[in-house]
């Protein structure tokens, strides 16, 4: 504790929880020190890394993995809340474990309804490599589905519905229905400049809107955490991330 890296024993074996408070460079130094100091402990260990929501550049990611490799450490898998990190991990052939980070975060829970939602009955897709960009406002009765990530530059009005196998980002007001991870991807997120959906679904979770919305229009993001949908301000998170970079 205290050095930004927490070692935890779990179902998957040893898990390293990497604090988001540290920069990537600090993290590498601390990690290297730790590995040197307790080299016998980590000898031939298979580790799980928990990155939280930390974003990575592609180079940073591979460099970070390089350090671990050179210390003789095998990576069993990673936990991440960041879709891009997840994508890079998949490309590097590293297994994704669980539904995301086990770090606790401060969130406000929005009438979560545990499973019972419909998901398409196909197997979860491996990777959502493609994305669709829609540049218009979706009005009542209009549907937009994409088998990957979906970005809307415009509003999604009440009565309209957007769905995607991957993540959904609305650069505008989301007031209709959104279903991310429609094929069962529990790691999918829904983000919008104004997140006021009538109903929000991620994989097989459903959350309905609260009757009263807070009036401050901050960008928000919804994701699944411990089996239910949680919404948190995106701007706040972004600030934390900015301080890291």
């Amino acid at each position, binding site marked *: 504790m205290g050095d930004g890296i927490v070692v935890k024993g779990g179902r998957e074996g040893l898990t390293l929880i990497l604090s988001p408070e540290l920069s990537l460079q600090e993290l590498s130094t601390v990690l290297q020190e730790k590995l040197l100091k307790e080299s016998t402990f980590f000898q031939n260990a298979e580790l799980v890394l928990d990155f939280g929501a930390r974003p990575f550049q592609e180079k940073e990611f591979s460099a970070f993995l390089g350090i671990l490799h050179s210390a003789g450490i095998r990576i069993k898998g990673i936990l991440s809340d960041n879709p891009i990190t997840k994508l890079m991990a998949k490309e590097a052939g590293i297994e994704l474990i669980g539904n995301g980070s086990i770090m606790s975060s401060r969130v406000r829970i929005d009438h979560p309804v545990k499973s019972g939602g419909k998901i398409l009955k196909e197997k979860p897709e491996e990777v959502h490599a493609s994305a669709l960009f829609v540049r218009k406002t*979706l009005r*009542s*009765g*209009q549907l937009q589905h994409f088998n990957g990530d979906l970005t809307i530059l415009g*509003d999604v*009005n009440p*009565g309209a519905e957007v769905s995607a196998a991957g993540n959904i980002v609305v650069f505008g007001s989301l*007031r209709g229905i959104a279903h991310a991870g429609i094929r069962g991807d529990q790691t999918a997120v829904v983000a919008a400049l104004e997140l006021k959906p009538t109903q929000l679904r991620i994989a097989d979770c459903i959350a309905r809107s609260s009757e009263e919305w807070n009036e401050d229009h901050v960008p928000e993001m919804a994701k699944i955490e411990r089996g239910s949908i949680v919404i948190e301000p995106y701007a706040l998170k972004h600030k934390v991330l900015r301080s890291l970079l």
Partner: protein
Amino acid sequence: MGKVFVITSGKGGVGKTTATANLGSGLAASGERVILIDTDIGLRNLDLVLGLENRIVFDLVDVVQGKCRSPRQAMIKDKRFENLYLIPAAQSKDKEDVTPQQMKTLCENLRREFDYVLIDCPAGIEHGFKNAVAGADEAVIVTTPEVSAVRDADRIIGLLEAEGKYSPRLILNRVRKDMMKKGQMMSIEDIQEILNIKLLGMVPEDEAIVVSSNKGEPAVLNPSSKAGEAYRQIVERMKDPDLVYTVKPDNGENLFGRLWKFFAKVEA
């Protein structure tokens, strides 16, 4: 070449027919040659609101099916204006008796003779709507400050976009400013946040509309009606697309505000 407008709303009972009658009469009063087409086959109303029911011989279905010699035979001349005509809907037939293609052809023929062709659209989004929209190049959406009416209007705007008809304009009907101020009714900002289209005008809730509809005399011709005044202004904006309706800011019409203005004038 005349312009073809469709007056539509999605939801029923928001005032499409009343709006069509008033816009038509208003345009005719300003000297334009106007023809109104009622496409609500089976539920015809426009003739009643104009007080022309007893003059109907041929109707829209007769026109498109060629049962009268020419469209001219089905055109009913208005009581008040020489330059205002109506093609009424059929009462005993179905909306399927007319096709969108037939409407297109009819509108193309009529726009050669008239400055304005106004099409009164039935409620709903089915065949009747498709007929009404087919020949129009501009759309006027009528809605009231209710969530259901606004939701349907939004749907209609989406369907119009799908037909390649962009930039429809909005008439907000049955407005009660006192309720809007108190936040008991959807405000114009609430509505525009969803619909986000150009505003042709707002028509206040007015009892005189009920009376005038029942009498068959459009309110736009009644100088003392508030709704009539609103329609007269809307007619001006219809004729000139560059005129934009701006919601007047509530410029302190309380006692203090008025006193301030009064003194400001005296000073000057």
